[in-house]
């Protein structure tokens, strides 16, 4: 069954067809989220949210863009939401003033950087790039994710992010500059 037929079945409420669609895209969505959020747990949570929105919003998918463009757009939006929530949590804590010594009330903020376990699975160069990616601006991380990691071209990125291709190009240039700056201390790793 091709993708168009699967989508048609999903729109008619066929949960098995929806399951097949999820299986087709889950790795892409999880790993895109991982690259954007730099955290494994967040990546899986975000991916679940993406597919929930796909499930609820399939009736509104009018097929003006391709399905993959649509799902990747939802992924970037969900990840942006996650980051905004993360930012609000951090801001709330930073202005809360004196900390409560009571351990039960201690707030947990999920660390946005890759975990030691995740680092252990990567070599030194990869670890340096993952750390740099987690530290640059979100819009730069988006571009690097879509262009370098997902291998999309300018037009595809323009469709997903809903920005002109000229902006894609200039943003990519600035993203490269940002990565280079972050990694300049580890330049010898890359020789």
């Amino acid at each position, binding site marked *: 069954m091709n993708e168009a037929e699967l989508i048609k079945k999903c729109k008619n*409420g066929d949960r098995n067809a929806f399951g097949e669609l999820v299986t087709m895209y889950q*790795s892409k969505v999880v790993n895109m989220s991982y690259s954007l959020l730099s955290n494994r747990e967040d990546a899986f949570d975000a991916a*679940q949210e993406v597919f*929930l929105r796909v499930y*609820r919003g399939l009736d*509104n998918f009018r097929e003006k863009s391709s399905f993959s463009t649509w799902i990747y757009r939802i992924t970037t939006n969900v990840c942006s939401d996650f980051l905004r929530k993360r930012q609000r949590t951090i801001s709330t804590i930073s202005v809360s003033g004196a900390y409560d010594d009571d351990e039960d009330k201690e707030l947990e903020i999920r660390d946005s950087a890759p975990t030691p376990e995740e680092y252990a699975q*990567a070599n030194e160069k*990869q670890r340096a790039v993952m750390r740099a990616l987690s530290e640059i601006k979100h819009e730069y991380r988006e571009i690097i994710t879509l262009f370098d990691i997902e291998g999309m071209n300018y037009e595809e990125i323009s469709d997903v992010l809903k920005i002109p291709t000229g902006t894609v190009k200039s943003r990519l240039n600035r993203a490269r500059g940002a990565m280079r700056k972050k990694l300049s201390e580890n330049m010898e790793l890359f020789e």
Partner: protein
Amino acid sequence: MDCDMFLNMLDNYDNLSELEKEQLSNHAKECESCRRELEFLESVIATTKTLPKLEVGEDFLKDLNLRIDKEDIKLNRHTRHFKRNWQKYSAVAASLVLVAVIGANSDMFVDKMGNNDSGVIDEVATTVAPKSETVALPATETPKNEPSKSENAEKTEKTVQTQNADTKTEAVTVRENAVPAVSGNSQRNVQRATATPKSTAAATLKPTAKPAQEEMPSYTSEPVATDEPQNDDNGYSLTTDAPVGQYAMGEDYSISSSGTMYEIGIMTVNSKQYDRAMGILIECINGSVGDCYTINASDLGTLEARLTNAGVEFDAYMPEHDGIITFKIVKY
């Protein structure tokens, strides 16, 4: 090529032609510092392309299906709430239709009635009890954004009865000399109606949730009709063509002075969760018009999914068309 030119080209690395890349490479062979820069950039890009990937196990789909099932059960509750109260919602919608139609034809009614102040529509407009005999059940198909035409009272009565016949509902009797209820004594205020619905409903009523299933859905559930207007359990259509706009009819409805008909959706939200709902709403809407919000039809699914995920109890009765949807929030 000098080093400055080299570094400028390097900044535009992804857009370089093959010839330009060759020029870069040639300069790098002659200049140690530029060579390091080029190798550094190419190595970073190559490493980024080959970062370790996460494996996605079978649990991902299982967990997703559990979440969907859980939410479907919650949505079924909303659908049952709607179905229990459909008569109330239909009654309100019907009274809106009548008041709006009469309001749009008010000049003609003023002419016909002379000084007769007795208004049948008083009864209809202000009575929203589900079992009222004067309540008209709404029509099936609704032409969207059609301006209302002036009709005489007879035609109005016939139209209502024809529509009712089509939907196999009870006929409504609208007397020919009916006038809209007026807030003041002046007959000149005939365009202003003061019906105050006791409960809320959208101009177009259509449950956005899929039809309720009484048990946990299997993964081979029946196809759901998406394009046909949905009817309730008794086969009554749930769409109306009540015009809405600027004149206040009560706290939740309005009619435009031009009589132009368009639809405004209604979202009812549990008042205890109103703040939470508004926090999500503000991120999904694209603006507001008066006391209404506007949202892209394509973002409606996202809004509802986010509200559900946040545990907000709500019902949404939205027009079904592309483009911008206008709707109000009502707390219950």
